[in-house]
């Protein structure tokens, strides 16, 4: 078992007092960010990224991963106590979490959410550990053609599985790709898209600027518009007796939780799917297979456990393609990828060979993050109840200041702060008009890789465009990509045909 010895080495890194401290700070920050309505893991990572310059790069990534993790736990807190999902990933938790809180079982619901998150997280981290090295080995044989095909596949999953308007998804992908080309052309070195020779654009548009703009400023603008009245916080107290009873109750839900973990892990790996649909699917399956399915939606503990295991498992699942292939499985992991590239830790199979200490340190830190998150989560429940009473305007003001200062810090150019402002307002308007933001951020992060691998392949093959389908792996990816791409059009065609036959059909919108 080579994996075990690598993992043991990893624990030597992640269990060092400093990294342990980092993990605890990270999950605590993540829990609060996740618990705040309107802020989820992606917003947290975007806002906190500029602040992580304070620690060494490898610890910074561990910190960001811990925030990601903590936010997944935290999302459930406001779903249960406020009835508003703390992050979109915790939407399904409101279905049964809120009714439980209204019945006076808020404490039990919070324990269930924490324990379920822990189970989902742990099972998926074990799967992650098993899959990481083999997947990285396969990825080692990838040439530029495979890289291009894989990125293309990642984008087409948004069109096929994203559930958003396909035209708008394509627009956002292409906008992200076009924005990623701003700056110097990586092959000829000529400046392009610098918009009338503006010096600020020579260095390109940083993913961080787009992320802080859309997920920081834009998100706050969106929340200002949509939250007119302050929601009511349900009180929750936890006693040891309740904790014991909760654990006992959870012990009978192994089937639901393991199903949710597996589902979450594999759905989370897909770039377009991720934690929110995974949680909704897990809820749906739990409801169908449960013996007490009639009480779902009225405060069934199983309805809390199922989505919470799945969304945590999905967050781990989305780390897998990011770390092994360099293709992020979610917007948050896209930001992690951008951060790693910024610090010179380029994700992908080579990272497993060149920086095994870092890779396995990060993987093992996911185990410690899980333990830390469940402990901090249950211990701090009274603090969450208090924090959720904080007036929303205070949070908004502080986040907006952080967006401005944090946006300035990495490049120290006012140009970037203005870009953040533009992306914030633009992102808010696009989001209002149902344009998905995740493909935009992913495209900006993956754009340079996509263009580079495309042009490298063509240069190596003397301009032979068929090179992409002559290699078996690359051809498979391209084939899958085409399948995903035409899927929504096929669906539209079939439903259109049905409508003409007066058969009503409705596709549920997953967002």
């Amino acid at each position, binding site marked *: 078992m080579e994996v075990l010895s690598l993992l043991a080495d990893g624990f030597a890194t992640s269990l060092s007092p400093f990294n342990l401290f980092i993990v605890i700070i990270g999950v605590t920050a993540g829990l609060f960010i996740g618990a705040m309505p309107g802020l989820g893991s992606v917003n947290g990572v975007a806002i906190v990224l500029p602040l992580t310059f*304070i620690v060494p790069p490898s610890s910074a990534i561990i910190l960001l991963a811990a925030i990601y993790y903590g936010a997944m736990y935290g999302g459930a807190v406001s779903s249960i106590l406020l009835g508003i999902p703390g992050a979109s990933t915790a939407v399904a938790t409101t279905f049964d979490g809120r009714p439980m809180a209204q019945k006076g079982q808020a404490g039990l619901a919070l324990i269930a959410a924490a324990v379920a998150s822990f189970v989902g997280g742990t099972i998926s981290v074990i799967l992650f550990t098993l899959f990481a090295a083999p997947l990285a080995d396969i990825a080692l044989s990838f040439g530029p053609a495979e890289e291009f095909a894989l990125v293309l596949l990642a984008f087409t999953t948004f069109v096929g599985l994203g559930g958003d308007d396909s035209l708008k998804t394509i*627009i956002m992908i292409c906008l992200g790709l076009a924005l990623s080309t701003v700056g110097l052309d990586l092959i000829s070195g000529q400046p392009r898209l610098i918009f009338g020779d503006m010096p600020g654009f020579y260095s390109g548009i940083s993913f961080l600027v787009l992320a802080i703009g859309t997920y920081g400023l834009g998100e706050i603008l969106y929340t200002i518009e949509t939250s007119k009245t302050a929601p009511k916080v349900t009180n929750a107290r936890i006693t040891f007796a309740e904790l014991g009873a909760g654990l006992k109750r959870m012990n009978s839900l192994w089937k639901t939780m393991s199903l949710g973990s597996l589902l979450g892990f594999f759905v989370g790996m897909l770039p377009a799917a991720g934690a929110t649909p995974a949680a909704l699917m897990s809820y749906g399956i739990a409801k169908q297979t449960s013996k007490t399915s009639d009480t779902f939606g009225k405060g069934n503990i199983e309805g809390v456990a199922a989505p919470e295991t799945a969304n945590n498992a999905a967050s781990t699942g989305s780390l897998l393609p990011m770390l092994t292939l360099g293709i992020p499985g979610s917007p948050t992991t896209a930001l992690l990828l951008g951060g790693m590239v910024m610090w010179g830790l380029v994700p992908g199979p080579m990272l497993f060979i060149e920086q095994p200490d870092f890779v396995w340190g990060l993987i093992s830190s996911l185990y410690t993050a899980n333990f830390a998150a469940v402990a901090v989560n249950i211990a701090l429940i009274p603090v969450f109840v208090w924090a959720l009473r904080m007036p929303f305007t*205070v949070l908004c003001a502080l986040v*907006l200041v952080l967006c401005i200062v944090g946006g*300035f810090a990495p490049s120290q150019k006012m140009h970037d702060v203005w870009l953040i402002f533009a992306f914030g307002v633009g992102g808010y308007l696009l989001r209002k008009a149902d344009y998905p933001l995740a493909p935009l951020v992913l495209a900006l992060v993956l754009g340079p890789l996509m263009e580079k691998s495309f042009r490298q392949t063509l240069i190596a093959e003397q301009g032979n465009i068929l090179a992409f389908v002559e290699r078996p792996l690359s051809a498979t990816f391209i084939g899958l990509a085409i399948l995903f791409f035409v899927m929504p059009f096929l669906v539209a065609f079939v439903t259109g045909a049905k409508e003409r036959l007066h058969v009503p059909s409705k596709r549920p919108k997953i967002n």
Partner: protein
Amino acid sequence: MLLDKVIAGALVLLSAYMMSHAILLPIGWNGETGGPGGGAFPFWCSLIILICAVFVIFRPARSYEADQFTFDREMMGPLIQVIIAIAITIALIPTAGAYVAIPLFLFWYLKIYGKHSWTLALSITVLTPIVVFFFFEATLKILLPKGVTEPFFFPLYAMFF
């Protein structure tokens, strides 16, 4: 539905603008080195945006199944106020300095916009710049623009650098 078309129209203009800049570099097939030229990627991506956005504008309303969005009219006023306040704050940073612009913004947001108590508004207005200074300037050595207030920071620089 009109707003949807307006936003798609803005995307058409944006993509046309990006295309006009992309054509400064070769956008076609570069026969000698193989593969497309430097302007190809931005050009063709922008063209796809343009085509899709035109489709969004002209497709029949019935085929559009996503939620029809509206702006909350009551919140539009406050929202525009916040956007203007952020723009003023960013504009003030290079001239009046971050340590004037940010407290001003916080005070406006908390006291005038948020109508919080004096204690809360003033304590956050005063404490935030101090935390920002110690985090970014004293620890990370990232200097924020000070504008005309620069001379007031010389004694502090002497203390921390």
